[in-house]
């Protein structure tokens, strides 16, 4: 049960992180850090996320998360953009087989608020193309409830909507965009803060996104809407949790390496973007009986104020 809780925590952390990534060009669907924003302007993204994880072990653990990720970006100047991201969990559910039978526990509510800033350190614009390198730094505040209870008692910490701890993350985003295609990638490290004797494993991520203009095939004057075919890749490595609260110490059944591939579509106009993608596991190497993703579905919009 303890390892189930730990992995549910990872599910929540990853879900939030993914909802964070995205503001400046057409930008990826599965991460928020590349979102473009002009000086003094706002960009707003809403994304519904459905995530399913399981371990296939004797406990037959299943974790499902249905969430809405909200992101607001603001261009402080032409190079510095700041973002706020807040997830709302409609449902966070754990099902696990116990000696007493199948047990189901769930919760919901507002999650932890993430704030980050991105600075465009290097920019090279040419006709119909741009190349940008932008480091970013952020933190996640424990705004979500981490003490929710049900009939059985206090919910496992990983199932809570909030982590209770302060987390920091930082990395770099690289964007190469032409009129025909766009490539975004990010390398990100996340250090999860310790809270009440529980220290979730830290995480490395390498994400990449290719957006290819499928329509219109030919560009003439003016600015038509674009339809992009999207393929994204999400590689992550998460360390083991440390649970001193329950005297477990380093949890052997937590963390691991995972690679997801996500085909998707984006319909891009000047004012708004509709987008959707399905993330499917391509490879994974979990620690012990750690949970693995079965799939994630993302659908949402972006709006230029």
């Amino acid at each position: 049960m303890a390892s189930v809780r730990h992995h549910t925590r990872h599910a929540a952390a990853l879900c939030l992180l993914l909802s964070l990534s995205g503001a400046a060009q057409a930008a990826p669907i599965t991460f928020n850090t590349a979102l473009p924003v002009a000086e003094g302007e706002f960009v707003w993204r809403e994304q519904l996320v459905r995530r399913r994880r399981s371990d296939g072990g004797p406990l037959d653990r299943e974790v499902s998360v249905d969430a809405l990720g909200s992101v607001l970006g603001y261009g402080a100047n032409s190079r510095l953009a700041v973002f706020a991201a807040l997830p709302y969990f409609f449902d966070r559910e754990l099902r696990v087989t116990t000696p007493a039978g199948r047990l189901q526990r769930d919760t919901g509510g507002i999650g932890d608020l993430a704030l980050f800033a991105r600075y465009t350190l290097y920019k090279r614009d040419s006709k119909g193309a741009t190349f940008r390198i932008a480091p970013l730094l952020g933190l996640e505040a424990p705004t979500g409830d981490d003490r929710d209870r049900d009939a059985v008692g206090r919910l496992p910490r990983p199932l809570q909507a909030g982590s209770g701890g302060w987390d920091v993350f930082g990395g770099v985003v690289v964007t190469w965009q032409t009129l025909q295609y766009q490539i975004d990638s990010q390398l990100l490290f996340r250090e999860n803060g310790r809270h009440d004797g529980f220290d979730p494993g830290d995480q490395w991520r390498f994400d990449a996104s290719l957006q290819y203009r499928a329509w219109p095939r030919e560009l003439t004057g003016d600015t038509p809407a674009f339809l992009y075919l999207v393929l994204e890749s999400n590689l992550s490595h998460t360390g083991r949790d440390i649970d001193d609260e329950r005297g477990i110490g380093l949890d052997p059944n937590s963390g691991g390496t995972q690679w997801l591939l996500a085909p998707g579509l984006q319909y891009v106009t000047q004012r708004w973007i509709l987008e959707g993608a399905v993330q499917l596991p391509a490879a994974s190497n979990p620690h012990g009986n750690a949970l693995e993703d079965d799939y994630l579905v993302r659908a949402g919009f972006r709006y230029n104020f």
Partner: protein
Amino acid sequence: MNGLSLPRQLLALLAGLLLSLPLLAESRQYELGVDGLACPFCAYGIEKKLRVIDGVAQVRVDIANSLVRVTMREGATLSEARARRAVEQAGFTLRSFREAGGG
């Protein structure tokens, strides 16, 4: 014009057209070459930054050719420095600036 004869109506119409020509000619147009423009979502930022400049009547973004055409109101002008600032605020680079002629 109901009380006027047909020739006088035509004369009045002609005079009106002649008088309006100089005014139309004062509606200046500029063509901005903008580097870095590569998708519709980014084009909105530059359009918005140019629209707030005093005297700007219309902004059209030709994304295929990386050009932004700005039409001014009668008598208004756009300086290269002001255009450059708007383009940079939107996160792009001004490649060229020229007056494209009156409307």
